[in-house]
């Protein structure tokens, strides 16, 4: 079947098997290997991408279901050569070690902060509780999300001020 998916602002049209999972579509068809595959059971969250600005575990969603929708992957976080605050937060606070959970963590956290720009630590922990990390013990991930909350993009700050 033919699908057309908007990924990171670009339209991609591909002929695929109807059973193809979104994670494999992104990785194997588009070569966007920043999205990872870890468990098949929606437990680990390394495959999280945003579909229409909502985090989704792409190992349990068919690529066909994303046809006509907008997908944001880790490759789309950086804008005009500038890291998203969540990326900068992960770097500054040592929120990653092996880096395998990091894309999914950041996409979950980006969505979370978009809806809750001033969260408490427990709210951050709850928000990322669908994403496993085996390296960091979560401490520095919480700090990374907090850093991003404390350092929004200038444009976002202006939007908040205007509203």
């Amino acid at each position: 079947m033919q699908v057309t998916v908007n990924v990171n602002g670009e339209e991609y049209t591909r002929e695929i098997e109807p059973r193809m999972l979104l994670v494999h579509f992104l990785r194997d068809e588009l070569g966007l290997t920043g999205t990872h595959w870890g468990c098949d059971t929606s437990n680990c969250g390394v495959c999280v991408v945003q579909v229409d600005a909502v985090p989704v575990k792409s190992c349990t969603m068919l690529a066909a279901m994303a046809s006509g929708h907008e997908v944001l992957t880790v490759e789309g976080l950086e804008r005009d050569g500038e890291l998203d605050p969540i990326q900068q937060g992960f770097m500054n606070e040592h929120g990653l070690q092996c880096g395998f959970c990091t894309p999914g963590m950041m996409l979950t956290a980006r969505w979370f902060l978009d809806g809750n720009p001033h969260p408490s630590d427990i709210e951050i922990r709850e928000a990322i509780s669908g994403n496993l990390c085996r390296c960091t013990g979560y401490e520095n991930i919480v700090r990374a999300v907090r850093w991003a909350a404390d350092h929004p993009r200038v444009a976002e700050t202006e939007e908040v001020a205007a509203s």
Partner: protein
Amino acid sequence: MTVTAEQAHVGFGRRMRKEDARFLRGKGNYVDDIVLPGMLHGAVLRSPYAHARLVSIDTSAAEAHPKVRAVITGAVLETLNLAWMPSLSHDVVAVLATDKVRFNGQEVAFVIAEDRYSARDALELIDVEYEPLPPVIDARRALDPDAAVIRDDIKGKTDNHIFDWEVGDKAATDAAFADAEVVVSEDILYPRVHPAPLETCGAIADMDKVTGKLTIYCNTQAPHAHRTLYAIVAGLPEHKIRIVSPDIGGGFGNKVGIYPGYVLAVVGSIVTGRPVKWVEDRAENLMSTSFARDYHMHTEIAATREGKILATRVNVLADHGAFNNTAQPTKYPAGFFHIFTGSYDYPAAHCTVKGVYTNKAPGGVAYACSFRITEAAYAIERIVDCLAFELDIDPAELRMKNLLHAEQFPYMSPTGWEYDSGDYPRTLQMAMDIAGYDELRREQVEKRERGELMGIGISFFTEGVGAGPRKHMDILGLGMADGAELRVHPTGKAVVRISVQSQGQGHETTFAQIVSEITGIPSDDIEVVHGDTDNTPFGLGTYGSRSTPVSGAAVAVAAKRVLDKAKIIAAAMMEVSPDDIEVGRGTFSVKGDPTVSKTIQEVALAAHGPMELPEGVEGHLDAACVYDPPNLTYPYGAYIAVVDVDPNTGAVKVRRFIAVDDCGTRINPMIVEGQIHGGLADGVGMALMEVIAFDEEGNCLGGSFMDYQLPTAMECPSWELGETVTPSPHHPIGAKGVGESATVGSPAAVVNAVLDALKSYGVRHADMPLTPAQVWRTIQGRPFRTDLAITD
């Protein structure tokens, strides 16, 4: 403008990681990200039985699948003499089953197809006939006379016994026990758990038939050891094998060994003439690759009524699964378990370890265990708490009374370890101060009066890491030394090549910092090369917290050699004697006249230039080192967990966790703390959630993340860290390993805390994991064996 050392990022200290730039942008390069031209995909058919005879395999339908290129069975491998491969413990492991299957999930056949979906489809088309045999699941029944013999492939084998091993002075220990005022004994199980890195294991094999060169891309923690083993297993010339270990999505010991899937990818590439990728799925990872622990430890402690420890004794039944494939130094079939005397001062100890086969996946040494020190630390810290329970002494007071003191180091333990340095009471006191220990105890009393269950658990651990001295330690005959090569380019930038392999530890950052600290070259000017056997010196890889103690030492020695040579050249440049040179951070100045000086960058250029060098000094500015550690390093720490237990549901909440670690010199404190955080989460997971159990038919009950529960951000508290710094006296920069410290030390703190909370029920011990069900049943006075399925 003058650039300060801080601005130029010279030396030790908190530094952002170099590797983050690619990971944060989704530009990491993990093995499944690699696509080679013409690459095929492999998938493994696995046994649904724990123990069964293979009657027949019909692969014809799979072979007829239009996208299948080959199907490999054990019979095919037998014709190549590859059906079995050597294990890491002088046993053999079946690559594909030929006679029997010996665990649930064992490899039976391998399909190679044009894409990963088709390979999986074709597995369904293979028809295997099995004749089920009675499985041996309970290690405690493995040596029963009527137990089925699992390893009848071994000539003359009539039982499931693997080895017996003992360490310590039995007579002295028995005498101490006979005379002791108090003896406490407990059966303590460290159940089977799994490292479960989020990236599963995988490999791509690419055999170039023209050149005869085999390139294997594999997420291995030990690329050089793999190359040598492939040379031995497959009979290929070692110089024609190249192992590329790309970015690794977590290892924790899971990615040390060679798995059948890797060998099958190699065979697949030879058979098809194309690159073959094999990446396991999560169920395969949990069911078939290296598990950890599975130690049944009958643990005893002898003491005076005042709480002075006199002796300890442990008799271990070790469940090694269907093949003895633990990864540890040859001389030590139980790894470093005999460090079980822990952090205390007493003269007598003895342990025996009996290894047995069961119908379970092989492995044993994995999951950040420092070669079984995890089991040892858990046994001693649990039995010390049992002693405190019996004597009704505060567990902190009992530990303080017995901890080794600073003046006792170097300390020769009763089982033969020479602890290099430490000041244990200071570290425990710091943890108690951070925790507010006395106040917590007061709060606990108040809560108990209200019927609320609060527990405080302490653990004090000593590790021995950095294996190891060549004369004592080898794996399959390969001595555990590691090489490093440092080359300073003409413009003063540098490249250092190392044998160890990061799985997230940040070697590209910290190893550059080691060179920087010694030579004064900014760490941003130093490239760290690793993970490619064609481009790095030989060494045994990263596990057992050995990278900094061994490879880090090799890098430090190589950097010191470069510095020494640079000093001689600098002296020649300034026409003075090397004895008249004052060495600063990357500078060489004339003593008494600091205005006359050269930088390391200027020296590097001169070393490559036309200048006449002093007699005996060769051109360029390079150095190498193969480091043979004189001893292990002995990091230690004091951990305190505070938990609240719901008596109605058995649910445990870890409210606080205080960890004071001493790992000697800290190269990059940010990375050290990150390593500790991760290990503490492991401890919470193992203490409360994680277990690979089996039902009576031998089905693995932990084969997915729905069943094998890992801690999330909600189960973990905000870690409270402290530190003491007692450098290792024999390490070139005074550093000790730290990667596994928290995984080793933390489970006992959490378990001790939960059992402290349950003290009013008269409970002294219950086995991990302390799930709500286990805690609730413990409150009812009937904790269960967590390694078997619950049957009532």
